[in-house]
């Protein structure tokens, strides 16, 4: 096990404890207790050169009530979708094994039937009603070895069964593929779906508020209620705060919403006009754009408003900062050499260099490790397309190809996916896509939805 995956596991536990939605326990059976050697030993493998083939049949509902039955089906459907999303397993379509009986225990798993289907692994589980909610047990079986490769038991509320599936998916990716999955991550974005009018203006303008959603677009919820324009939400690394640009005071300024505590912070304390905030990788600082000294320049400030540092100083527009994963460099947009292009500068203001040479480029977003890449929006015709620049080689590849206008890319925390906004479906909507341009999914449908950001 690598250091990072242990860290991930610890943060998983911290998250679970903090949210008090789930409590995960090691199963009572010794199978998964000596977890590290066991998972390595029994890790699923597929045919040489292809990912393991996996079946995810319905979990068995051990209680006859409707809620438990629904939870069992939802968890297996969501788990299937979560595992499919990372493309690390080859998921066998669920309708091809409807006739295989669901097993309640390891003795009852019909391994021959699963082997006939061509499955390398099968996820079997149960859902049982408890006084406090539900207990969910899930096991990944290695079909050829006829043994449990991974197992977990969770107890918690029955209010959102999807959380059990998301947690299981992340743990399966971690234990089987050494991958940090994104099943429990969230998106934040701006939407005008409520069609409320901005106050104090004679023009008809719809308010734009901050929303959040699960990574797959489910559970979309409004976060701000200030009935003005809010733009460019950005998650804190711990996923408990969102910093954004709000016109609540009449001009753009930074606000932080602590979304579970229901409190707000104003890091810039009303000084000047400030927009496009981005949390540093450790969450202690915020890079942003401000015209406080006369024109658009880049600044970094501590989250508590102390230690303001100015990074750029020239009469051109400098805007749209993004942190490198180590927090030592910032990429941004500048039109100091004509049209807007992407530049990189060290956080102490040294080492400035231009890295994009497009007709027009904006919204750089620096990929997390292990990919040293910057995604951005480039003008390719009447509209924009998403491109990815590999910083090491300087090579650029294109992800979208002129279907609508495509802007504002934002990386998933594992660097394998991006959220972006596109007009390909008519109005502006949020989509996700993998870093190779495949697996395009529409996340929003209601109103105009813009400027997404993906939680850690």
């Amino acid at each position, binding site marked *: 096990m690598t250091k990072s995956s242990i860290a991930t596991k610890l943060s998983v536990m911290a998250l679970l404890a903090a949210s008090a939605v789930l409590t995960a326990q090691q199963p009572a059976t010794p199978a998964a207790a000596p977890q590290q050697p066991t998972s390595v030993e029994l890790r699923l493998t597929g045919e040489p050169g292809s990912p393991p083939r996996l079946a995810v049949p319905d979990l068995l509902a051990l209680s006859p009530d409707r809620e438990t039955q629904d939870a069992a089906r939802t968890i297996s459907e969501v788990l299937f979708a979560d595992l499919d999303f990372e493309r690390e397993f080859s998921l066998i379509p669920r309708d091809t094994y409807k006739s295989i009986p669901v097993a309640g225990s390891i003795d009852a798993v019909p391994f021959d039937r699963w082997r006939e289907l061509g499955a390398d692994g099968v996820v079997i589980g149960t859902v049982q009603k408890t006084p406090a909610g539900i207990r969910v047990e899930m096991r990944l079986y290695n079909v050829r070895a006829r043994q449990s490769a991974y197992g977990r038991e969770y107890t918690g509320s029955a209010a959102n069964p999807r959380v059990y599936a998301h947690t299981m998916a992340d743990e399966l990716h971690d234990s089987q593929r050494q991958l940090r999955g994104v099943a429990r991550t969230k998106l934040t974005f701006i939407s005008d779906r409520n069609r409320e009018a901005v106050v104090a203006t004679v*023009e008809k303008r719809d308010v734009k508020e901050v929303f959040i959603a699960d990574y797959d677009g489910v559970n979309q919820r409004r976060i701000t209620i200030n009935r003005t324009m809010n733009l460019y939400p950005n998650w804190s690394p711990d996923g408990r705060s969102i910093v954004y640009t709000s016109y609540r005071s009449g001009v753009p300024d930074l606000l932080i919403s602590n979304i579970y505590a229901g409190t707000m912070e104003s890091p810039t304390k009303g000084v000047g006009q400030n927009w496009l905030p981005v949390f540093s990788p450790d969450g202690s600082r915020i890079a942003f*754009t401000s015209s406080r000294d006369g024109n658009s320049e880049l600044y970094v400030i501590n989250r508590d408003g102390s230690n303001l540092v100015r990074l750029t100083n020239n009469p051109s527009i400098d805007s749209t900062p993004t942190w490198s994963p180590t927090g030592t460099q910032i990429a941004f947009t500048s039109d100091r050499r004509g049209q*807007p292009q992407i530049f990189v500068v060290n956080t102490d203001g040294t080492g400035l260099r231009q890295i994009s040479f497009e007709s*027009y480029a904006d919204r750089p977003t620096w990929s997390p490790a292990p990919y040293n890449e910057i995604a951005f*929006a480039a003008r390719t015709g009447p509209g924009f397309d998403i491109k990815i620049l590999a910083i090491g080689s300087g090579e650029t590849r294109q992800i979208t190809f002129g279907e609508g206008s495509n802007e504002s890319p934002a990386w998933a925390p594992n660097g394998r996916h991006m959220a972006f906004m596109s007009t390909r479906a008519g109005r502006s909507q949020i989509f996700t896509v993998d870093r190779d341009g495949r697996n395009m999914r529409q996340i929003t449908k209601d109103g105009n939805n813009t400027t997404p950001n993906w939680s850690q």
Partner: protein
Amino acid sequence: MNRRAHSLMVMVVLLSVVVGACSKKTPPVARPMPPPMPTATAPPPPPPPPNPVAEPVPVPPMPVEDTIGSKSLDDLNRDSPLKPLFFALDSSEVDADGQVTLQANAAVLKQFPTWQITIEGHCDERGTAEYNLALGERRALAARTYLVSLGIPADKVKTVSYGKEFPFDAGHDEAAWTKNRRAHFVITAK
């Protein structure tokens, strides 16, 4: 036109004098001298016109001032005496047309020195959302700088950028884009 009317009148006066002179049937030798006199006596008719012309001049400003002064802020902004200024693609330069617009706006603002205004910078959808926020700001600042150069006090003029977030025309063609690349004036206090 005025000169021609004036000389026509002089001719008429001269003719009538000549006709009158002829009707007297007095010895013609001594009479030719008076003609200079009629030109001197002719001016009296022109003076009357100047009076009626001078009177209407001060009248128009009064009613204009009254209607603007009595309007609510919302009514003022709905049919604003301050006209928007338009920009070229990706540009924040105040062009010749823009200067004429700003000079007219400055004239209105000098008439109403208590007004506070906000200049909103707007962009069309052909720029990115992020860059457009800075571009809209630069447009608003360019309009403000020009107004201040015309003598409008800087503390009366605020700026804000809305990027491409609130287009005035929701269309996706040049006609719409032209309307959306603008500095828009909002009166915030009287």
